[in-house]
């Protein structure tokens, strides 16, 4: 199996003395073309890895900013196949790896193997699965292995040592350390809990741990990268896109990327 490009990208940023900036945007918001442009703009402005979200009807991990964007995409008629189209178009223009963030049911309905094959063909690096825990992931572990795809599982402040161990063992690409007990959305303080989760993930052997939820400023990115291998930003970028279009996303990304310098 080939090495994970996500892991390699993160490692090279860490070796350079900082860490990776991972930027989330949903496909199809405000429309398919603009979402492709916005994703490309992320990379052109210093984002190292794209997390491309697939709109879903029941996004229990998402706060209002992302809910509003993904609901708008669904109302415009977003289909899963549009996700693969967008992915392919983004990958034809940037080298940065793209992970797809999706709730589990769309993958199940598409067919796990068929989904993996389409993802790989479109140039995707793997999946971030917010509502799939390793305990329920038997089929995905096997299929992702077969297709050489990354699989990012979540680790929470409340996770037991045994569960963190398992998350580190089964994740490929990175482990997504949830910074706070909550859902997506910008927050003034990125929880001290994040530091704790990452340090416990290190104890469990993780060499690729990225922190997400609540990060919205360059300063927070810098703080997080002091102890983590990557910082994940979502709501801030989605809000910028909603309010000011692609140019606003570009400047938000550039501003956040200053935290990785």
């Amino acid at each position, binding site marked *: 199996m080939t090495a994970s490009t996500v892991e390699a990208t993160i490692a090279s940023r860490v070796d350079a003395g900082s860490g990776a900036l991972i930027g989330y945007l949903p496909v199809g918001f405000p429309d398919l073309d603009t979402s492709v442009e916005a994703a490309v703009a992320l990379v052109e402005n210093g984002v190292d890895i794209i997390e491309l979200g697939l709109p879903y009807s029941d996004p229990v991990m998402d706060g209002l900013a992302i809910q509003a964007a993904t609901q708008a995409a669904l109302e415009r008629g977003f289909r899963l196949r549009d996700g693969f189209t967008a992915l392919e178009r983004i990958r034809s223009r940037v080298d940065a790896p793209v992970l797809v963030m999706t709730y589990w049911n769309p993958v199940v309905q598409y067919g796990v193997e068929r989904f993996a094959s389409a993802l790989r063909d479109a140039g995707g690096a793997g999946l971030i699965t917010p509502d799939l*825990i390793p305990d329920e992931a038997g089929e995905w572990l096997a299929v992702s292995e077969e297709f050489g795809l990354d699989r990012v599982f979540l680790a*929470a402040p409340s996770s*037991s040592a045994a569960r963190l161990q398992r998350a580190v063992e089964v994740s490929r690409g990175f482990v997504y350390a949830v910074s706070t007990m909550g859902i997506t959305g910008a927050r003034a303080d990125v929880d001290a809990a994040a530091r704790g989760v990452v340090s416990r993930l290190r104890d469990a052997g993780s060499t690729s741990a990225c922190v997400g939820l609540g990060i919205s400023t360059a300063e927070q990115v810098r703080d997080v990268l002091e102890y983590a291998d990557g910082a994940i930003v979502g709501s801030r970028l989605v809000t910028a896109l909603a309010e000011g279009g692609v140019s606003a996303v570009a400047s938000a990304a550039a501003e956040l990327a200053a935290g990785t310098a």
Partner: protein
Amino acid sequence: MSLREQVGPYFGSFGGRFVPESLIAALDELDEAYQAARVDPSFAAELAELHRSYTGRPSIVTEARRFAEHAGGSRILLKREDLNHTGSHKINNVLGQALLAKRLGKTRIIAETGAGQHGVASATAAALFGLECVVYMGEVDTERQALNVARMNLLGATVVPVTVGSRTLKDAINEALRDWVANVDTTHYLLGTVAGPHPFPTMVRDFHAVIGTEAREQVLELTGRLPDAVVACVGGGSNAMGIFHAFLDDAEVRLVGSEAAGDGVDTLHHAATISRGRPGVLHGARSLMLQDEDGQTMESHSISAGLDYPGVGPEHAWLAEIGRAEYHGVTDAEAMDALRLLSRTEGIIPAIETAHALHGALLLGRELGPDGTVLVSLSGRGDKDMETAARYFGLLDAAAAGEDS
């Protein structure tokens, strides 16, 4: 293993835990507390005393003789959960979980509600135990069940209208899950039906199993034998699992669930999850659900807020798969006719949810004939539905016309 001994997390291929990692510790803690409570005589005694002196259990069984004349002359026995304090079966589960929440040291409970009955029961328990209570309710439902919103407010609960998605029960569950992820240290999510991640389907069923345990004995005493069929309405499926459970291993007893068929199961406007759904993952469990080709949850439709849900508990999905229980759609119109029929023949106004089961009972009775006995879960009373019913039957216009003349 007998059917009654199934305790999850899986029922066949259904069930499990499809939730964010942040909730796993809370689910484990809850499961542990529940396992301890199950074998703790003091927990059972405390709950039994609440049933006796607060809820008003055991609930009685009423034979519906005049209604039965419309049901092929078979015997129709109503298990009267409508007479429970707060007016439905929902209180059985709420008191059990509220006791657990206290044991876990939680000071705040949150709940989702469709018809408002589970919200009212949760607000009631919160008042009784001195807990803070927040109830999430789809905006559409706050409108069609306004009376229950007022009841919850009066009981001291905060009702949060959910304005995203389809603005009904499914979105209220999403919002409750989001709250729980953020506040799990202080908060217990008091889920109101046999859906959701393990241990909810098993635990909620067990707290409602008292319905069937009592009814089985009551029917035996009254008729000298088991009923030929047991029928209940199915939204998430809690009253149905509660009354079915005691009969699961009585192979001669037919178990029948009435799903909301809205305008009809062959239209786009229904909530017949088992009749028309496909396996999928929703709200933390693998079960049957109404969804499009891409796995996006579809909006359900029913005149009854409590059945207007595109998912169903995993144990029902399994009972349907193995053929132990059967599920049929009942349209809005059929349910409303049954509601009026029970009101006029027995002087009992059922909830619109419950009326779906009553239509099912009419069909079963006609099929079984005069030798048959049908036990019906009369899951709730219709007070909350008076405005909907009055509008449906044109009674408001009639009253207004009367005033004018």
